[in-house]
């Protein structure tokens, strides 16, 4: 006797939180599986969500991470975004609202941090053909000093590779992004010994608690 495969159950996937726009808003069919991305309001906040399969969302699934990121990028165009950890799926709308109620204080705090700001990333790696590791200290000091002047906060991130000499996230006012970019370009042109990668703008993932809607490790509720 053959077992019938059961269709995967759907839940409500939350991409980010924004200040409530005042009325229900749709961001189009850009969610998982081409589902509509819409707002779920609780007091002055809205979760930006869509229907999605109720499953574990793997950190290594680049396609799904890209879908999450595309939605957030779209929302960021006109809103300050409190980012939410990738993989935050709820069984139903009622549980989203319950979590928002619990997370009210954290959302208020988060919005204060991200309002009018974006995150920019800097990675510096040693060059491939280098045999001995050149002294990175003075160069990193100059980078940190100059970029510190044009940002409101920064966070050192994990050096996950032996090639990485700096991995840092900067919180920058939206209207200072061009100034920040000019500083990065000026610093890059001075450096011949290391390679620099500049990325963003991103939502401020490294400056707020992205698990505000859940303390569960995988974000399923």
């Amino acid at each position, binding site marked *: 006797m053959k077992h019938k495969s059961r269709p995967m159950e759907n839940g409500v996937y939350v991409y980010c939180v924004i200040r409530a726009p005042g009325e229900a808003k749709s961001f189009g069919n850009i969610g998982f599986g081409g589902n509509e991305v819409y707002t779920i309001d609780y007091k002055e906040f809205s979760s930006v969500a869509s229907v999605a399969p109720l499953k574990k969302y793997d950190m*290594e699934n680049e396609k799904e991470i890209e879908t999450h990121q595309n939605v957030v990028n779209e929302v960021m165009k006109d809103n300050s975004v409190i980012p939410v950890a990738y993989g935050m799926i709820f069984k139903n709308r009622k549980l989203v609202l319950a979590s928002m109620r619990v997370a009210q204080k954290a959302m208020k705090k988060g919005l204060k941090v991200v309002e009018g700001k974006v995150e920019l990333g800097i990675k510096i790696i040693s060059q491939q053909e280098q045999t001995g590791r050149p002294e990175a200290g003075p160069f990193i000091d100059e980078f940190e000093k100059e970029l510190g002047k044009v940002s409101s906060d920064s966070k050192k991130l994990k050096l996950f590779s032996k090639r990485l000499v700096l991995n840092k996230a900067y919180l920058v006012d939206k209207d200072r992004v061009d100034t920040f970019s000019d500083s990065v370009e000026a610093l890059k042109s001075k450096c011949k010994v290391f390679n620099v*990668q500049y990325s963003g703008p991103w939502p401020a993932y490294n400056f707020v608690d992205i698990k505000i809607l859940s303390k569960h490790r995988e974000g399923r509720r």
Partner: protein
Amino acid sequence: MFLFDDVLMSMMGVSVPGLNLFSTLELIKDLAYKELYDPEITRNEIKENRMLYEFGEISEEVYTARKTELMNRLEQVQKLLNANVSFL
């Protein structure tokens, strides 16, 4: 029984050069297994592979092949961890 005998003899203050060498080899083997089966190390390698692709140091083909290899390894490691297998 090897480990038991080795430990027991060490406790009694008896040092047998041959046994010590075997013990060291066992330890090296265990450490190598631990490194190979540590999901964090594999995750770091996945990130490094992505980073080198983004920096333009490796082609899309090399990136994809390495990613597939690392993802398979991570899947195996996670299966082993779920089965509660430990190497130390």
